[in-house]
Structures are given as structure tokens and as C-alpha cells.
């Protein structure tokens, strides 16, 4: 890990350890869940060059899975999260096999359409309780001795999950696998001619991204004790794209910064109703037209160091 990234990692970890002293912990937990979600999404677009417009289906599936397992089946939290994540992984495998058959814009449209199909399924299925969602999900007792009803226990559990996911993604993008992924992004034909089975690499990246997005969704369901249709709606897919774009596509820390900014923004603009979507749209337009490196990308460029 280059020194600049070591420092950034230290700053980020210190921030999330110290911030709950000053900031409402539930807000920070929300930010960490979305940061993990955005990092998982970034793995696919930033390093694999695949723009998924349907990542909400993984967030939603895992959050319904975890909520249902914890509430109806009485799973302890570790197994509820595992179950939700596994459900997202399975969905990732099924949709990935279809979506990687096309590239670029088609890939985006296919993932969006598949996610919409999943959304309609949840809208009609009985176990999701439609518009109400699964409410009052018990947080339970982690590993039999950590009671997650305590806000600090919950906070540091989320922190541990977020850091584990973040470091796993870091490890993946700096592994030989990650390098091949980058090669495919830069020049697919050449990667094929070098003998790489590109579809296997793409599918694996997609699967990994779906699984980690699921981990974020399952954790989020326990934090808010709620799984609802919002998590599976296309606007959520758009939001994660926005977070990653604003933070910096293909940077390591960008999605975390982007998620944090967008979640704060929504918090402050919540009273303004439809203005939230307008502001989001304006950020999209500005980012695409003038600010394509994103916040962290610009800082890294200014420091001439990778971040």
C-alpha cells in the first residue's frame, strides 16, 4: 500500500472511531453502510469498466433476506447477515450470467431492467409486506454475547463489517485478478488475445460486487430494523452511481467520501421534498461535465498521489 493510501486509511478509520462522539451514531452507521455499498459498486465500474444501473437489487434482496431471517426465522444477527448476503450473491450469479453477455450501454440497460423485474417481484410478494416493508426487525445478540440493542455495540459491529469489506476490496483490486480486470477494462480484445477468459473475470467481479453490496444491505436492515421497497427501487441504483461518481470513479477512497457527502446532503435537504432529486440531478450534470475525477480523484491528482 503506498504511503498516501496508508495515511488516508488511518484518517478514515480514526474518523469513524472518533466521529460518534460528535455526530449522531445512526447517521454514521447509515453512511458506512452506503460507503460499503458504493465501494462494492466501484469495484465493478471503476476497475472492471462495467456500469451497473441495477445495484439496488442486491441491496434490497440482502436487506429483505436478513430482515426476514432475523424476524420470522429468529436467526441470530451473524446468520441473518450471512443469509442476506448469500441471497444477494445468488442473485448476482443469476443476473451476472445474463448481463455480462453485453457490454457498455447495453450492460447498464440490462442490469436496470433486471433490477426493475426484481423490484416488481418484491412489490407483489407476500413476505415483503409491500409498501410497509418488514418492520421492527430484531437486532439480536451477536455471537451469543454482544447485544446489538446497545447502540455502541451496533456501531462498532457496523464499523468492523465496513472495514473488512473495504480492505477486502482493496486486496482484490491490487491482486493479479484486479490487474487482469483493469486490462479488460482498458482493452478487451487484447486481454482476449492474451488468453484470458474475460467472461469468467467479469462474472467473478460482478459476483463479488453483488455480494459486498448485499453485505451492506443486510447490515443496513439490522441497523434500521427495517427492510423496505426503497432499497430495491431504481432510484437507489442511481444514488449509488451518484455517490461513486461524486467521490471519484476508480479511486479507492472516493466512494466512501461520495457516500458520506450524499448521505449528509439528504439529511439536510430532507425537508425540501422533491428538491433532493433536483440537487442530485444537478450534481450528476456538474460531475459529468466538469468534474469527472470526483472529489477524491481531484485531491489525488492535486497531490500527485494515488488515493
Amino acid at each position, binding site marked *: 500500500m503506498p504511503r498516501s493510501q496508508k495515511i488516508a486509511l488511518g484518517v478514515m478509520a480514526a474518523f469513524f472511531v472518533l466521529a460518534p462522539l460528535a455526530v449522531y451514531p445512526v447517521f454514521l452507521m447509515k453512511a458506512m453502510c452506503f460507503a460499503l455499498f458504493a465501494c462494492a459498486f466501484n469495484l465493478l465500474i471503476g476497475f472492471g469498466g462495467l456500469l451497473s444501473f441495477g445495484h439496488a437489487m442486491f441491496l434490497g434482496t440482502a436487506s429483505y433476506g436478513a430482515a426476514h431471517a432475523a424476524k420470522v426465522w429468529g436467526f441470530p444477527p451473524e446468520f441473518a447477515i450471512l443469509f442476506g448476503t448469500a441471497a444477494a450473491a445468488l442473485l448476482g450469479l443469476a443476473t451476472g450470467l445474463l448481463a455480462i453477455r453485453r457490454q457498455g450501454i447495453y450492460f447498464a440497460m440490462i442490469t436496470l431492467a*433486471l433490477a426493475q423485474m426484481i423490484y416488481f417481484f418484491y412489490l407483489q410478494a407476500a413476505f415483503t409486506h409491500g409498501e410497509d416493508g418488514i418492520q421492527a426487525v430484531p437486532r439480536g445478540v451477536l455471537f451469543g454475547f454482544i447485544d446489538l440493542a446497545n447502540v455502541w455495540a451496533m456501531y462498532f459491529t457496523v464499523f468492523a463489517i465496513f472495514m473488512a469489506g473495504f480492505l477486502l476490496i482493496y486486496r482484490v483490486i491490487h491482486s493479479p485478478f484486479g490487474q487482469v480486470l483493469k486490462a479488460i477494462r482498458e482493452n478487451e480484445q487484447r486481454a482476449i488475445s492474451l488468453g484470458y477468459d474475460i467472461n469468467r473475470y467479469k462474472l467473478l467481479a460482478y459476483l463479488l460486487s453483488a455480494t459486498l453490496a448485499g453485505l451492506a444491505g443486510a447490515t443496513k436492515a439490522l441497523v434500521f430494523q427495517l427492510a423496505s421497497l426503497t432499497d430495491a427501487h*431504481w432510484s437507489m441504483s442511481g444514488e449509488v452511481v451518484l455517490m461513486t*461518481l461524486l467521490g471519484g470513479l476508480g479511486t479507492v477512497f472516493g466512494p466512501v467520501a461520495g457516500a458520506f457527502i450524499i448521505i449528509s446532503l439528504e439529511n439536510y435537504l430532507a425537508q425540501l421534498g422533491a428538491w433532493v432529486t433536483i440537487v442530485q440531478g444537478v450534481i450528476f450534470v456538474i460531475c459529468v461535465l466538469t468534474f469527472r475525477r470526483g472529489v477524491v480523484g481531484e485531491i489525488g491528482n492535486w497531490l500527485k498521489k494515488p488515493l
Partner: protein
Amino acid sequence: MTEIFGVPTQALFGQLLIGLINGSFYALLSLGLAVIFGLLNIINFTHGAQYMMGAFVAYLLASKAGLGYWWSLAVVPIVVGFTGVVIERLMLSKLYKLDHLYGLLLTFGLALIIQGLFRNEYGTSGLPYSMPAELAGGRNLGFMFLPNYRAWVIVASLVVCIATWFIIERTKLGSYLRAATENPAMVQAFGINVPRMITLTYGFGVALAAFAGVMAAPIYQVSPQMGADLIIVVFAVVVIGGMGSILGSILTGFGLGVIEGLTKVFYPEASNTVIFVIMAIVLMFKPAGLFGTQK
């Protein structure tokens, strides 16, 4: 009452008609997307919002200026198409040298802005738009009752679709367009103003969406979100048909509308998802789409 497969014929033909109506909109919208994509290599995510703008401008013309349906049908596509021209000149034209995905992201952002602005102004409840007096009522065909306006929508969209096909495939202007799709630099070298052609093409695609919006206004309620979910279905239609062929997208649009209508009769629970399921099946066997060629 006569029945086919245990379903009353009235219900069957009624849903078939609704299917054809939906299919008209799928065809018009996917046609616009295909025309824009052909030349700009951009998937116009704003298309649903522009369809909504079409319906809204018609509504505003009627309530503020007293201009009726027929005026709207002529004026609205030009007005909304012009906003498309402005968007292309100010924003999209800056993105042609970049990855095509940025065009998708920009138009997605624009859709959020436009839909948000209309929602702020008019709320989320639908606004009524009355149909033209000339087309009120309907006729009894013996096996079903056919409302005149619905018949008009199907015929008008068929005519517009075929006219578009004719312009692109059979006229000189269309041949310039197809040539520029293949090799813009070469066409530019022949002295044709390709950037202007791109601008007008985008404007035309947007005008098609607005035209669909005006036609939809008397059938569906005019509301800020009316295009948001529709555009995702149209994306699936485009993936199924493949964007290579104009006639292909027209055929796929109408065909899928009918299939959706029939699903409502025989298995209503799946009517929301049937198009996405068909997309998944088509991707398994023909990844390039029914009428497309994979580059």
C-alpha cells in the same frame, strides 16, 4: 358469452387493444432511442422525462392558452424538441469524445432534474387531459367495443413510425444519416455538416418522445412520474429488439405490447414482469437482440 380458452372474448380483445396501445408507445419511444443512439452513441435516459414534458406542455397549452389537442400535437413536439436541441448543444456535445457511459449518466441526471422540477410545481397526483371531441365515443365491431381515440393512437403511431423508417431508409437525408452513423469523419469530409445533423437528430428523437407524450395525455393521467417507470420498460424493449434496425424496433414495440396485454388476461400477476422475463430469455439465446448485430 363467447369464450376463447375459458376467457370471455370481450376481455381478451379489450386487453389486446390495451396491449396495442402500450405497444404504440413502446414503439414510438424505442424508435426515438434507436435514432438517437445510432448517431450519438448515447442512450437517452431523459427520454422518459421528455415524454412526460410532451404531455405536460399539452396540458399547459390547453389550460393556460386554450389550445386544443390538435394544436398540441403539432406544436408540442417542436417546443420539446427545441429543448432537446439546447441540451445537445450545451451539454451532450461536450461528451462525444469520452466514454459513452458519461452520456448515460448526464441524461440520467437531467431526467432527475426535469422530473423533480415538475413534481415541485404540480405534485405527484395525475392531472386530467380531455380527449378531442372529434375522437370521443367509439364503435361496436360486433366482437368488441373500440373507442375511437384508442384506434387513432394505434393508427397515428404506426404512421409516424413508418414515416420515420421511410425517411431514414429511403430518402437522401436518411442516407446521409446512415452514412454518418457508419463513419462521421468521412461524411464530414464530403461537405456535410455532421455536428448540425447530430443536433437535429437528437432534437428529432426528443420530438418523437414528446409526440408520444401528447398522445398519451388523454389516456393516462398527466403526472411528473409518468415516464420514469416507462423508460425502463422501453430499455428492455430496446435490448430485446436490438438497436440495429428501425423496423425491428417498431415490430418489437408493438409485439411486446400485445404480449403484455395477453399476459394480463391469462396470468395477471406476471404482467409487470413479462417483458423483463422475455429480455432475459432473449439474452440467453440471442445476446445481440432479435434484430440486432453484435459489434
